[in-house]
């Protein structure tokens, strides 16, 4: 159906829900690249007014990508929980924003999550300011468990990301020790491999597991290989804690990543069968990012933020331990500068949280984006206030394998200190036992000294 809104004497018409959502999106280079962005500030506000007046029920009647054409749409429709939705079924998008900012609390939002579709949360995010994105997300409570407990109130976790350009085990291990000395690693110790070679992945998995066991660290490890490679590694008996995969919001973008819902289900089942979690069974780790669908020419005329929210529907199907947007990684053709990256990071975090995900954000930028450390400090601080589940920890903020800048171990310490957050409780207790909770000793703790011999 089409929508119309008159602003300052000009009538703006939007052909369908997909177009309305795109025109209502705050500006970003990826939507301009796709030819979907509003052509004027007035058209954007007209679309936002029309979107605000739209009943939430409408999202159950009009799909942005047809049910018959896309398995992600089928997943969203088939899994929608009408009973959970009943609480807000009388609201418009604008009324939903008011309710989220007003009476909604953590318990109500947790109960509501299965009744929300990605398109509903994407729509409300488009009429939110940054402070709304922060305030709403800060109400959400999402707790997940594998070998420790993530997402508890008052905590902020860090993924220790010890990437090495040639997957040298000693280079990886040295970065792990550096991160542990600076309080990182409770979300996961997760390596992006430089090579998807199966032998190499198995070798890294064994090394990570050895480090974790040697120091009895209450955390989980992951080698972020393609899901098919991880399945081969499981077949060879490798110690796989978490199965990783990059995912997107359409069947087509997932195909471009070489995955489908069926393949993810197979991988989830394989990881569950290993029964390696000690306090829980959440064993999937997903990464997403605005722009991936357009990059794969699989966006179906939808704006990138709506598609990003649809990726979260894929994620929540598999009860993940961790989900993060790699917000500044995908490039300036999708998010041009620090302003666009900041907004997108806060949108992704809130949308993921409303849909019930343990949402982290890779606060990051590449060297061809118009962004710098000041932008990252601002986004990290805003996300911390918003209650982000975890951020990345990279030595000195410089990932020497992926060639981009993310948050450093130091940034994690800063955020925890200024916000009064602690690591996951099991990991915090381990830091205490190792004498690392308050300071970094110049001499390595005794158990670590023989580690790289």
């Amino acid at each position, binding site marked *: 159906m089409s929508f119309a809104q008159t602003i300052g004497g000009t009538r703006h018409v939007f052909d369908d829900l997909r177009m309305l959502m795109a025109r209502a999106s705050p500006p970003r*280079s990826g939507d301009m690249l796709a030819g979907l962005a509003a052509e004027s500030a007035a058209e954007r506000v007209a679309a936002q007014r029309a979107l605000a007046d739209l009943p939430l029920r409408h999202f159950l009647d009009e799909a942005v990508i047809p049910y018959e054409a896309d398995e992600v749409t089928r997943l969203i429709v088939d899994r929608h929980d009408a009973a959970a939705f009943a609480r807000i079924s009388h609201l418009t998008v604008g009324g939903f924003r008011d309710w989220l900012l007003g009476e909604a609390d953590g318990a109500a939002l947790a109960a509501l999550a299965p009744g929300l579709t990605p398109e509903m949360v994407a729509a409300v995010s488009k009429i939110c300011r940054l402070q709304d994105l922060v305030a709403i997300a800060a109400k959400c409570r999402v707790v997940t468990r594998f070998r420790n407990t993530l997402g508890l109130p008052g905590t902020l976790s860090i993924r220790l990301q010890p990437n*090495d*350009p040639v*997957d*040298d085990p000693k*280079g*990886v291990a*040295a*970065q792990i*020790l*550096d991160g542990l*000395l600076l309080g990182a690693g409770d979300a996961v110790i997760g390596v992006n491999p430089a*090579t*998807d*070679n199966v032998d*190499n992945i198995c070798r890294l998995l064994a090394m990570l597991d050895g480090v974790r066991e040697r120091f009895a660290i209450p955390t989980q490890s992951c080698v972020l290989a*393609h899901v*098919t*490679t991880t399945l081969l590694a499981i077949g060879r008996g490798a110690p796989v804690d978490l199965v990783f995969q990059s995912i*997107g919001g359409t069947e087509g973008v997932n195909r*471009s990543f*070489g995955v489908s819902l069926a393949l993810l289900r197979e991988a989830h089942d394989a990881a569950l069968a290993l029964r390696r979690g000690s306090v829980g069974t959440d064993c999937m780790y997903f*990464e*997403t990012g605005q*722009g*991936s669908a357009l*990059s*794969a020419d699989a966006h179906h005329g939808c704006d990138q933020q709506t598609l990003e929210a649809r990726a979260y529907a894929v994620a929540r199907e598999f009860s993940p331990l961790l989900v993060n947007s790699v917000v500044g*990684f995908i490039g*300036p*053709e999708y998010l041009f500068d620090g302003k666009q990256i900041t907004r997108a990071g806060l949108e992704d975090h809130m949308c993921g949280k409303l849909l019930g995900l343990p949402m982290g954000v890779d606060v990051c930028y*590449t*060297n*061809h984006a118009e962004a*710098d*450390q000041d932008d990252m400090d601002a986004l990290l601080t805003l996300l911390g206030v918003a209650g982000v589940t975890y951020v990345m920890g*990279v*030595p*000195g903020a*410089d990932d*020497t*394998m*992926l*060639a*981009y*800048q993310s948050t*450093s171990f*130091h940034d994690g*310490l*800063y955020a925890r200190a200024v916000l009064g957050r602690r690591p996951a409780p099991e990991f915090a207790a381990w830091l205490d036992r190792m004498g690392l909770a308050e300071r*970094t*000793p*110049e*001499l*390595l703790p005794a158990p*670590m*000294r023989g*580690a*790289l*011999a």
Partner: protein
Amino acid sequence: MTAPTRWTDLRRFTGARVALGRAGHALPTAAHLDFQEAHARARDAVWSELDAPALAAAIGPGTRRVASRAADRRTYLLRPDLGRRLRAEDRAALVAAPAPGSFAILVADGLCATGVQAQAPALVAALRAGLAGAGWAEAPVVVACQARVALGDEVGEALGAAAIAVLIGERPGLSSLDSVGIYLTWAPRRGRTDAERNCVSNIRPGGLEVPAAARKLLWLAAAARRLGETGVGLKDEEPVGLGATQAAGRVEG
């Protein structure tokens, strides 16, 4: 190497920025300014231009030059779609002199020209020697400006090549301003996705050296010929230690 006993000993084991010390929770001043300098240099590298005539001359006689439809660097950064398409006249020129069934090589500036300028001649020479030994028909090497990886699909298609290797400048990082990647695509044609390619990455001094990179690419080329495909269907099961490859890695534009 002896086992580390002090925090600073970790630096012996990695080029990453470990053991930087602490000023409260933050970086000490010297480490902070080291980072700022590295970022400034990387920003400048993104805007470096490929000297295509010099590179073509260094690669050797018969090297051909093309350009994408992105007219300048800013357009290239904001319009990747244009960086994946050949100018019409360049496509016509390739179609007019095809190399059916050959193994084609495209050398492209990508996101940083510095490493390609320096390393492509040696890489191309190593690949050509190996390909000839494996019985491949050779296509003329093509050098492209303002090019994305997928420009190789159109170049390979225009040449009628059986496969194409795209040697391309990788996005500069703070610790690697000169890195080259090679993307291998079987049966190149417009519309191929990144899941249909294999990649050998991080080719630079101090990273993967040229001989090891060429050897790995040749191993992948032989496997691709045997399987009739590249991408996630071609698993790198070569024993460890022969270099770094990647199939469909992290989400990236």
